[in-house]
């Protein structure tokens, strides 16, 4: 043994990561991995990351357009005790994503933020820097179940307030932060108004339909929305979520199972309607993005719909190609949560969806099943160009972003 090498080990400043740990410490290994892989020269767009908008709900409700609802909401937050956020529906306490405290960053991010800008700007910048990300597309979190709200107008009030608040407090402070603005899809006329109002606003690079809802995406009421987005060359994203009150999930008693299925099921239903009703034929230049359902569901749905379609083409007369061909040519997919236990299955999936042009990296930070850019970089079966496309260049093309990397690691 070489005694001359004896040295004192350095105690890490963070012995146990908890909800108060700084994002940069939580993600220190990610930052090291990004440097090791030379990500300084790689454009990396994170097409799905989150913030917890309800932390700022008292501030956000001030952006509600309707003066009566705004007043009610402000009083609600000034005076009520022990309640959830004004106007929000959802799964209330059924939020077990942090696995009983095992994944603290999912439970809460309570680190100090005192940079003179909104906390969501600071926290997003820290995450971008640690992960090696150039552009981050932010989505809300509890609002993702607003599509099931018993009052359709509440989706309009809160969706618009969220868009205005996000632009004012967050997106306008850092042009590396983007969003797909919230579309109040349950009220089509208001969704059209949303597109007119928010297209071209700072940081708005498209529009998002939270997928948890019971409205059919092929209803004639939505055709004007799709035409408006196609005309503006702005993508529409269907962002998945779970909802345990869904009767199809009613027998599942473990969060693991409900979450695994719920986050996929909503997008499988919408995609099936999207394709079989010929939306890609009616709006061939409309780009749809399927967000946060992972990837393993896509080969299943492609095979299933192709087989069934060929036996019953009279039920989908608008189709001129196989369902799978629309799914690989007209649709884009975000990577996260990328299923990696069976790498052969993943490789086949990426081939089937034409990942080189259709796949967009997403971290989903700070959620429990977040992914890192290194996972794409380390895939053994992709060319360097394919990796660069997936990590950033596909998104730059889709969203018309400058492909020059902007981060400093």
């Amino acid at each position, binding site marked *: 043994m070489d005694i001359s*090498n004896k040295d004192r080990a350095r*105690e890490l400043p963070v012995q146990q990561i908890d909800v108060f740990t700084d994002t940069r410490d939580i993600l220190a290994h990610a930052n090291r991995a990004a440097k090791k892989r030379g990500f300084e020269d790689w454009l990396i767009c994170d097409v799905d990351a989150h913030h917890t908008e309800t932390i700022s709900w008292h501030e956000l409700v001030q952006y509600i357009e309707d003066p009566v609802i705004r007043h009610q909401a402000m009083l609600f937050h000034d005076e009520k005790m022990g309640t959830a956020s004004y106007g929000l529906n959802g799964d209330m306490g059924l939020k077990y994503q942090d696995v009983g405290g*095992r994944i603290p960053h999912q439970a809460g991010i309570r680190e100090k933020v005192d940079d003179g800008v909104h906390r969501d700007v600071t926290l997003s910048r820290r995450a971008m820097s640690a992960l090696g990300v150039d552009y981050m597309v932010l989505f809300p979190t509890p609002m993702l179940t607003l599509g099931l709200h018993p009052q359709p107008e509440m989706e309009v009030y809160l969706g618009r307030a969220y868009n205005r608040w996000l632009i004012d407090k967050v997106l306008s402070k850092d042009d590396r932060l983007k969003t797909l603005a919230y579309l109040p899809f349950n009220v089509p006329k208001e969704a059209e108004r949303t597109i007119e109002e928010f297209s071209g606003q700072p940081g708005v690079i498209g529009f998002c339909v939270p997928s948890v809802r019971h409205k059919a995406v092929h209803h004639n009421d939505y055709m004007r929305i799709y035409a408006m987005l196609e005309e503006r060359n702005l993508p529409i994203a269907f962002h998945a979520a779970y909802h345990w009150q869904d009767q199809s999930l009613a027998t599942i008693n473990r969060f693991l199972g409900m979450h695994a299925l719920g986050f996929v099921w909503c997008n499988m239903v919408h995609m099936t309607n999207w394709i079989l009703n010929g939306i890609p034929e009616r709006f061939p230049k409309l780009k749809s993005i399927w967000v946060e359902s992972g990837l393993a569901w896509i080969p299943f749905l492609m095979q299933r719909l192709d087989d069934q379609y060929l036996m019953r083409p009279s039920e989908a007369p608008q189709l001129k190609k196989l369902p799978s061909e629309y799914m690989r040519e007209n649709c884009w997919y975000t990577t996260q949560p990328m299923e990696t236990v069976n790498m052969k299955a993943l490789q086949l999936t990426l081939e089937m969806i034409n990942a080189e042009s259709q796949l967009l990296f997403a971290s989903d930070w700070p959620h429990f099943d977040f992914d890192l850019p290194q996972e794409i970089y380390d895939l053994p079966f992709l060319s360097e160009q394919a990796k660069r496309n997936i990590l950033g260049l596909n998104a730059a093309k889709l969203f018309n972003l400058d492909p020059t990397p902007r981060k400093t690691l």
Partner: protein
Amino acid sequence: MAEYLVCSEEEIADGGRRVVACGEREIGIFRVKGALHAWHNMCPHRQGPICQGRIYPEVIEPVDEKGEVRTLLYNEENMHVACPWHGWEFNLETGSNAGPAKYRLHRAELAIREGQIYVVL
């Protein structure tokens, strides 16, 4: 081979830990049932900081003679560390995953001399 002095033995109490950097590598030293175990601070899942995770007893679900279950229990005989990134869990004594044993932590060698703990790399 290099040695890194960590601390004296008594500084890591039963149930406690010390996570250190030894040059470029990070090592977590845990004391479980009186014995020291050292693991590289690198989760085999996504290279997360496994040794900086929370420690939990193993969770079990006893099945009675009728094949029925009634409750979840903690088994304090097996202490686990959960990766703070994604929750992968490993036995602190064996390094085996809470599920399939093929996923394992990477053990680091320790030396104890004159009451001092050293990491040997």
